[in-house]
């Protein structure tokens, strides 16, 4: 408060007191809304009499010799919001005026250059800003956040991109879209997050589970997409982005429009569509890799400092083709695919999307209201509903040809109450309660045994977070969270499988029926999860900062890890869940060093993450079916260590030229078997040199070089299989990672003033300039085809 110089201007309107004694006295006190502390040295300006007064050390002010009448006091505050108070002065009056002082979040910002605040103080957090999101308007969330060092992706082709944070992905990452935890069957590697980045104004990536207000199970990290902060001014603005991509002959368009009123009401929305056909590797088309994507969002509400509410809807529908040659029937087919240099299906370009494909829609509806109380803080209440509908189509025959093989509908209702107490000066307290009900429906009409069973699930959570500004140099935080998860499922097992798993000994009491060769069972599980996060930020001086964070978190097994029991076609393997699996527990220590001066900007994030009972898939043998022998992979657990270092270095040579280096290395070890962990990202170095010249229509150009090393640390899960057609045994090399690769990319953009108030940004980008053939270890289609070749993007962005 002491640093804030408050200016109070008093404007007087409606002088109606003619001929009366002007001897009235208006006195009062200026106080901080949050904690009631006085605002010192405020200047009070009387426009009519052109006289000033200031508030004293107790915040008191005094204006004498006023006439009867109505006074409007317009109170402004440097870097804060103007407040207007109307006073009907009939007698001497004492009035307390509360001014808002932004303690934890900048609620009012300019329309342009909206500020973004971090979610954590001591966590390893990076924010991706709107200009980067706009420049990559056609990209998926997974591709955009790879911008953060230590973040990579696990892919099924180019359209199904799942974020990997410090080696962990899927259920270990929590994604928040406008304050709503995304519930979209995130367990499978081929289930990409159903989210459109264009509705986000910023994307915050938090490594590890330090964001306890949202979850206790984000062992890998949390990704937070935030919409634009609403400005309480009268304004109407919009943006349209159009782009073309040469590879896949794709195009995208996204338009947004926002209207705000100075009364605090606002509404905005955006609508986007993108489509591409078959992508191309340097030497051949990747058949059936087309995609279509329709997305939209709408937001409206009322906002003021003291109260507000909001409704938000978003919808996304994606149809994604999956590389035809990756659909295989048995292990011999897989051997053929691995041994063949080119995909076994090679057809000309097409926009058609045929089976195998996915068609996934996601609807989100949210209502949120908040109120601020004097000398207390802010109370927020939120309800949200999500409906995720996933269809997966396989190559099928006869009457079932056009029928989905997977048809899952996941509905989630959540409520949350959150209280932020900011009256305590140096301390900020945040606590709350959340509840969630989830219902998964697996449609039996598919004619294919359910991949994920029908279930209902309840979650209840409570959290408490304390943040302390200990001194000028130290900020500390401490948080605890408890979650109760309860899952109640109906699952059919082949009796032969039930016995093979040994469930007849441990789970005979959950069998409720016997239907043909199957048992109907009713597994019910309850998990208690306790999480802690604490850390310290040490601001050594204006150049150096050190951050330390410790977090304990745990994650219950997801439905896939519990219930899987069948053939996974594209992987040509039988995957088995285990009802006996318990939760996995992570102890993560993060230590960061940040350096900042006018030449350098350096962030080094190091971490040690010990995950006990880490759940992973491991091969345990083979099973004969009438399609040949399949390897059997079982969800099992081990204690694991994940240790790594992520670095981001910016160097500004002068005003025009800058360099950026990003690199990350992770060491993942399966401690029980003393083997490397599977699917760990390899060493990566990403460098860029950029040139900017404002005078040339805000010209920017950057050349980017990416080196991805071969992953030398991998478990050898190769096996031999009998190939009947050649009457021989062949090695199935599913483990050996592909060789290292180098990629060069280039991007340039300029901004022009067009029409009266509009700006047009023209951007051109070339990815994989030299059309290099490569395969990536973390792309599941690497057995079947090369990654994509050169891609030229042209994008126009009009701000109006």
């Amino acid at each position, binding site marked *: 408060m002491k640093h804030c110089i408050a200016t109070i201007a008093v404007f007087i309107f409606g002088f109606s007191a003619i001929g009366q004694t002007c001897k009235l006295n208006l006195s009062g006190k200026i106080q901080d809304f949050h904690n009631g502390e006085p605002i010192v040295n405020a200047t009070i300006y009387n426009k009519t009499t052109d006289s000033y007064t200031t508030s004293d050390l107790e915040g008191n002010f005094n204006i004498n010799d006023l006439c009867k009448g109505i006074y409007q006091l317009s109170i402004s505050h440097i870097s804060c919001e103007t407040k207007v108070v109307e006073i009907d002065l009939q007698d001497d009056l004492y009035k307390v005026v509360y001014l808002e002082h932004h303690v934890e979040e900048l609620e009012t910002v300019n329309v342009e250059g909206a500020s973004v605040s971090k979610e954590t103080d001591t966590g390893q957090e990076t924010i991706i800003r709107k200009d980067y999101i706009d420049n990559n308007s056609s990209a998926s969330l997974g591709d955009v956040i790879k911008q953060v060092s230590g973040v990579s992706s696990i892919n099924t082709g180019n359209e199904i991109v799942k974020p990997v944070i410090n080696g962990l992905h899927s259920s270990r990452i929590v994604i928040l879209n406008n304050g709503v935890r995304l519930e979209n069957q995130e367990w499978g590697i081929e289930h990409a997050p159903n989210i459109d980045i264009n509705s986000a104004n910023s994307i915050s990536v938090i490594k590890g589970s330090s964001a306890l207000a949202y979850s206790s199970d984000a062992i890998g990290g949390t990704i937070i997409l935030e919409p634009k902060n609403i400005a309480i001014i009268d304004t109407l603005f919009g943006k349209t982005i159009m782009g073309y991509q040469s590879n896949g002959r794709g195009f995208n368009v996204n338009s947004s429009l926002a209207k705000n009123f100075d009364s605090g009401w606002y509404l905005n929305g955006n609508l986007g569509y993108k489509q591409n056909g078959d992508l191309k590797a340097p030497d051949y088309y990747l058949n059936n890799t087309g995609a279509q994507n329709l997305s939209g969002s709408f937001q409206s509400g009322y906002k003021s400092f003291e*109260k507000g*509410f909001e409704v938000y809807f978003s919808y996304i529908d994606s149809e994604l083709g999956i590389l035809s*040659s990756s*659909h*295989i*029937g*048995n292990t*011999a*087919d897989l051997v053929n695919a691995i041994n063949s240099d080119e995909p*076994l*299906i090679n057809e000309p370009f097409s926009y058609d999307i045929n089976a195998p494909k996915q068609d996934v829609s996601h609807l989100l509806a949210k*209502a949120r*209201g908040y*109120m601020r109380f004097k000398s207390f803080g802010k109370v927020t*209440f939120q*309800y949200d*509903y999500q409906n995720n509908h996933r269809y997966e189509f396989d*190559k099928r*025959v*006869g009457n*079932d040809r056009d029928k989905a093989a997977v048809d899952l509908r996941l509905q989630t*209702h959540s*409520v949350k109450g959150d209280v932020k107490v900011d009256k305590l000066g140096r301390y900020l307290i945040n606590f709350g309660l959340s509840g969630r*009900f989830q*219902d998964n429906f697996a449609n*039996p009409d*598919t*004619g*294919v*045994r*359910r991949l994920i*069973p*029908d279930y*209902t699930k309840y979650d209840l959570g409570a959290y408490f977070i304390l943040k302390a500004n200990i001194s000028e140099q130290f900020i500390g935080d401490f948080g605890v969270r408890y979650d109760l998860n309860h899952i109640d499922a*109906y699952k*059919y097992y*082949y009796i*032969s*499988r039930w016995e*093979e798993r040994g469930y007849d000994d441990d789970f005979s009491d959950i069998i*409720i*029926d016997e*239907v*043909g*060769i199957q048992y*109907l069972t009713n597994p019910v599980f309850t998990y208690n999860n306790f999480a802690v996060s604490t850390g310290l930020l040490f601001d050594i001086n204006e150049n150096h900062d050190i951050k330390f964070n410790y977090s304990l978190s745990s994650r219950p097994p997801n439905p896939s890890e519990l219930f899987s029991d*069948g*053939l996974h076609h594209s992987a040509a393997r*039988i995957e088995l869940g285990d009802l006996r699996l318990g939760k996995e527990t992570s102890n993560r220590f993060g230590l960061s060093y940040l350096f900042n001066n006018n030449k350098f900007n350096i962030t080094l994030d190091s971490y040690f993450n010990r995950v006990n009972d880490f759940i992973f898939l491991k091969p345990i043998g083979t*099973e*004969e*079916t*009438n*399609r*040949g022998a*399949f390897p059997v992979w079982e969800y099992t657990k081990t204690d694991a260590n994940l240790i790594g270092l992520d670095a981001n270095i910016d160097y500004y040579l002068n005003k025009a030229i800058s360099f950026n280096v990003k690199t990350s290395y992770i060491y993942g070890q399966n401690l029980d078997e003393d083997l490397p962990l599977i699917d760990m990202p390899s060493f990566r170095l990403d460098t860029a040199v950029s040139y900017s010249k404002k005078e040339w229509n805000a010209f920017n150009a950057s050349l980017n070089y990416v080196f991805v090393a071969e992953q030398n640390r991998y478990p050898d899960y190769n096996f031999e299989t*009998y190939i*009947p*057609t050649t*009457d021989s045994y062949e090695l199935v090399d599913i483990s050996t990672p592909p060789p290292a690769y180098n990629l060069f990319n280039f991007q340039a953009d300029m901004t022009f003033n067009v029409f009266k108030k509009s700006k047009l940004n023209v951007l051109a980008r070339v990815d994989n300039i030299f059309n290099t053939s490569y395969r990536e270890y973390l792309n599941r289609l690497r057995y079947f085809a090369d990654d994509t070749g050169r891609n030229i993007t042209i994008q126009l962005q009009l701000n109006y």
Partner: protein
Amino acid sequence: MKSFLKLLTLLLITNLIVSCSNDDDNTPPPPVNEEEVITTMTITFTPAGGGTAVELKTQDLDGDGPNPPVVTISGPFASNTTYTGAVEFLNELEDPAEDITEEVQAEGLEHQVFFTVTNSLGTVTYNDMDTDGNPIGLDITFQTIDTGTAVDGDITVTLRHEPNKDAAGVSDGDITNAGGETDIEETFTPVTVE
């Protein structure tokens, strides 16, 4: 604001009621019997001039389950004999069993049955064709070798979905370049010609 909070509370309560009533409706879901799994493949070889027919059969009644298929070979083939072979695919998980042979026949363009014979037990020729004039392989002729002593070998029968029938050798029955996806495959061993 207050009315908004009321609305929100109302929404929440309605929602909880809906959720709870969903929960009360706790009837177990119906079972799913796999519709297009081929559990059983039978190839019946009938000698042209009369004699004992030979049946090769594989049956896996738990589909992708852990039990291995049951493979039977009814007896030996006769030396230097022409057999007519008929292939049948069944899904015995359904009741009554679904005949998948008809679907394969109807979608002949997208299917082909391959016969890989080792140790020169005999030669297979296709008798049927799809609308493009390429073989399907549901109806074949098997000519056994002329041998004085008993010879053992293997016969592998593979049904491929979406093979490339135009690739080299495929329409002659060579699976090497066929590509596509294997729907069922079984190696019958040992098969004897005597």
